[in-house]
Structure formats: C-alpha cells, structure tokens
C-alpha cells in the first residue's frame, strides 16, 4: 500500500508514540475494560486507600484480579447500584478511594440522583467505572447498551468525565483518576478494540491530544472511535483532505483551548462518539464553539434511537458511526466551510 501519510501525520503520531495504526497487522485488539483491570491493580499497589466495590459483575468489569490481589479491599455488594454509589460516598468520606463498577447502563444509569447528591454535591472522591458502554456491547441488546451516560454525567457540576480511547489509555486514565481528587466517571467498553497508543503515549486528564495533524477539518473523537476517526482521516487524505484528529478523552473538564484551536485552525469540525448525539461529547464541543469559535460542525453518534442486538461492527455501522459515515461527515463539514 502506498504511503499516504503526509509529513504532518507522522509527526503527530510520532509525538504521541502511536502504533502504526494504518497497518492492521500492527494493531492489537484488546477491550478497553482490560486496561481498567490492570490499571486498578496498579492503583491499588500505589495507594492502600484504593478499594473496589462491585455490583455482581467482577469478571466482566475486570475487577476479578483486584479481588484476588487485595481480598480485604474488595467489597461485593450484589445487585445494588444505588447502594454502590452511596456506600462508596461513605467510604470516601472516611478517606478511601472507592472504584465502583458495573455496567454503565446501571452505573451511573440507575444511580443518577445518588451520584448527584452523595458524590458531586457532597464532593466525595468516588470513581465510577462504567463498563460495557456504547452499542459495541453487541449481542446483549438495547437494555445493556449505555448511550446516554456521558450526557447525564457531564451535566452534573464538579463531575470529571473520562472516555479513554483504547486499553492502554484506559489503564493510564484509571491511574490518573485514582490520583486526582474528585467525583469521577470513567467510561469503557466490552468489545475488542484497536490499541493505538503505547506505554510511551502521554496522558493527562483534561488535556486533549492531537493524534493526527491536518488543516482542512478537525475530527474530535473519544473512546474506541478515535481509531475509526484516524482510519477515516487516512481515507480522506486519499482525496486530498487533511484532517486533524483530536483524542478528546476528557469530556469534563474539557480542554477548551485545544477545541477552540482545532476549530480555528481547521474551520470545520466533526465530533465522533459512541453515544447519543444529544448531550454527549459533541454537544459540549458545540457549546464551546458556539460561544468562542463558531464553525460548521457535524456530529457522529446515535441519533435518538435505542440500540439492539448485533455484532459490535454491525451496530457501529447501523448507527452511523463507521469509517464511511465519518468520511461523509467530514466532507459535509468541509463543504459548509467552503460555502461560507
């Protein structure tokens, strides 16, 4: 395959120590939840106050290894997601750093008011680990596919909301949130997904990352679709359209300067997330840009529908979040920019 990457592409990828993501053979497939599992163990080793509480899903949310390594700091409470939050708030009040895990649909899906009152308003240092987020949960279907969770978390004052892009970054994000005081929602997924970052890729909460340089359109993505955005950008480059790809992993507090700069430099934006378009990461980007740097924006995400059973890839395509949808959105954004 001929190299299509411009010098700018490789310099951004190099600076971020990304793998050669354009080469399928170089890209490992690992669920982001695995990164949470390994990160949690390391967080537990670094700080004896880290405790893990699980609502009956220890294996699938990857708390099993922590349970074996730190049995005294693993708390099983059964199927009780409201308790998960409120009890963790009590533990945090007494100095613990509780990570609480279940599927995102129930945690924080079932416990919103407890999150607002006992975590955010009460300013407790609880870390929600929302597993199985997005339609990429796959066969379990709509009841278990959280696609509203970013919206309901980001509207709560003081909440930190993080959606890492791959398993490596999920590990780093887990460690970072353990060391950062504040009520936090960490979102990750079930499906095997591309590992594009490496051990050397930096990670800082609240600091968006440019994974690809380009001046025509800025693609601002989060979660496992960052990889899809990079692949779409390579596709667009074949048509001579150079996209900046921003890994916008911290939804709140969002890196406003980076978002404004991307919009200012490129003049058009596409947001990409495995979530409802309404209220999600892209909505926050639009709020920022409407006030500070109005440019044409196209949104990639689920449009006011529920999920369904299927394979992750089938569902990503069905809900308009695949490579071709991103390519089309970027072209629309570019056309709108040029028509101004």
């Amino acid at each position: 395959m001929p190299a299509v990457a411009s010098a700018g592409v490789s310099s951004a990828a190099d600076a971020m120590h990304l793998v050669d993501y354009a080469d399928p053979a170089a890209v490992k497939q690992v669920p982001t939840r695995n990164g949470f599992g390994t990160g949690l163990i390391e967080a537990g080793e670094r700080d004896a106050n880290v405790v893990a509480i699980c609502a009956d899903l220890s294996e699938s949310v990857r708390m099993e290894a922590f349970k074996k390594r730190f049995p005294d700091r693993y708390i099983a409470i059964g199927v009780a997601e409201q308790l998960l939050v409120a009890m963790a708030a009590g533990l945090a009040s007494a100095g613990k750093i509780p990570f609480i895990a279940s599927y995102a649909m129930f945690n924080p899906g079932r416990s919103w008011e407890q999150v607002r009152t006992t975590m955010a308003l009460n300013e407790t240092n609880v870390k929600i680990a929302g597993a199985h987020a997005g339609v990429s949960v796959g066969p379990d279907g709509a009841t278990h596919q959280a696609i509203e969770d970013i919206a309901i978390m980001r509207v709560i004052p003081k909440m930190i909301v993080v959606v890492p892009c791959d398993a490596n970054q999920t590990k780093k994000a887990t460690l970072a949130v353990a060391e950062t005081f504040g009520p936090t929602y960490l979102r990750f997924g079930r499906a095997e997904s591309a590992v594009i970052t490496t051990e050397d890729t930096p990670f800082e909460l609240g600091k968006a990352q440019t994974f690809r340089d380009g001046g025509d359109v800025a693609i601002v993505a989060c979660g496992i679709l960052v990889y899809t955005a990079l692949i779409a950008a390579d596709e667009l480059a074949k048509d001579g359209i150079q996209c900046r790809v921003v890994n916008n992993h911290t939804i709140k507090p969002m890196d406003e300067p980076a978002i404004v700069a991307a919009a200012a430099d490129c003049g058009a934006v596409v947001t990409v997330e495995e979530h409802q378009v309404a209220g999600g990461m892209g909505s926050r980007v639009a709020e920022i840009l409407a006030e500070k740097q109005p440019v044409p924006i196209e949104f990639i995400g689920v449009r006011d529908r529920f999920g369904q059973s299927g394979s992750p890839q089938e569902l990503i395509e069905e809900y308009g979040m695949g490579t071709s949808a991103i390519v089309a959105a970027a072209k629309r954004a570019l056309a709108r920019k040029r028509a101004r």
Partner: protein
Amino acid sequence: MGSLAPERLTELEAHANDVRQGIIRSLVAAGSGHSAGSLDMADVFAALYFHVMRHDPKRPDWAERDRLLLSCGHIAPVRYSAMAYAGYFPVEELLTLRKFGTRLQGHPERVSLPALETTSGPLGEGLAQGTGMALAAKLDHADWRVYVVTSDGEHQCGLHWEAMMTAAKFKLDNLTCIIDRNFIQIDGSTEDIMPLEPLAGKYRAFNWHVIECDGNDMTALVAAFDEAKSVKGKPQVIVANTVPGKGVSFMEGDYLWHGKPPKKDEADVALRELLAAREKIGAGRG
C-alpha cells in the same frame, strides 16, 4: 449502664428543651421548613450530642469522632439546633436557616458545614452512606461509631433495604440506625400510604439487633444507646417511637405539621409552652 444519674437526666432534658426552642425560633425566622419531625427528634439529638457521641465541637474534623448522619435531611432544624447548643456555631446563627448565604441550608450540605458529615435530603440514602463509613472504620481498625438518623417514611425507599442487607453482611456492629417512628409522612399515615409494620420484625429478619423504645423519654433513649454500643457482630436499630410535634401541644400528633413552620403567633405560643416546660424540668427530682 442503664442508670442515668438524676442530675444528668435533668441536664439532658434541659438540652432537649433548648433544642426545641432553637427549632421553633429558626423555623419561624425561615418561614418554611419541617416542624413535626424536628421537634419529635429533639430528645434523640440531645442524647446524641450531649451524652452518647464521642465528638468535639471545636474539632469537627477530628478523625476519631463518631459520625452522625441525618438521612432524613428535611428535619435539619433539629440537628442545627442541637449543634448550635453543643457549641459548633453560635445559637443566633440558627436564625439564618434557609436564608441566602447561610451555612444552614434548607437541607443539610456538608460542603457548607463539614460537621454534617453528609449532604442529605433525598430520602433513603443515609444508611447506605453510613454503611460505607462504618465499613471504612472496620477496614482501618478504628473504633469510632456511625449513627444514622432516619425517618420511618424513607423506609419506603429501596436503597435503604440494600444498605440494611449490606450492614448485616459485614457485621457492622459500629453502626446504629435510629428510626423516627412517628407514623407520619407528607401525605398522611405511613400505614395508610405504604404500610411499614412490622418494622422491627423486618429488621430482625435482616439480621439486625433491634431495640424499641419511647423516643421522647430520655432515660429510655440513653439505655437504648447503651445497649446498642454493647452489641457485637450486628448493626443495631433503635426504633424510637415518637410523637410528631412533641413538646408543642397544638402540633403533637398532627401530620399537617410535617412540612410547615409555625407562624409568628403560633411560635410565640410554642415558645411559652417550652419555657414553662423548661421550668418544670428536674422539679421533684431534687
């Protein structure tokens, strides 16, 4: 244990009377708020702040303090009043209740006033947080205790029962739940709205140690707290049978006083009654 010296009893009853006066004064100044439950829990809060708990008003962040959580945050006036008389802040600050800029928010906010331990008001959440705190104390091998004051009405919330199971599972004998069993909630009698009885039996079935007492009798309350502290291996519940509005004759037993404050003239009558009662405290007991 179980034997309270007469002069100590007199002191505690006087404190409870002070707390009731503080409730009336703050509620009439606020112009809104919950009267009945605040008044009927004055004895419990006086017992906790002036006898039962290990705490220091000058060091609200003392790591070894006992934790008191008010789950039914709407009766905040009783807690604020007890805290003021215990020395956490000036009694006159009670008159700022529910006003702009106050630390005494309409429902308790820990960030405004850290000694509150939690932010509360949304019902059914206190025991869950108390369970977390009590478990943290166990993990740290600390000997401080957790007290959670709940309303009977909030026992209709599912989360509370999740916490009941959990406290028993972890054998949290450092956790005491107190129920303001006054049989009223906003819409009427608890037994009409959603029956709770047999409430004590439900706690027994959940493997709790159950103590039932007259929640407006200081001697009985102190004995109940003493018994609770002596229990090993189980969380304890004190079902405090109270008379809503206790201490103010025209409010006693009337659910309509659940969610409203006295007007100025009503408050004057209430305060006169309380002052008269205050003069009688200890009389005849030497």
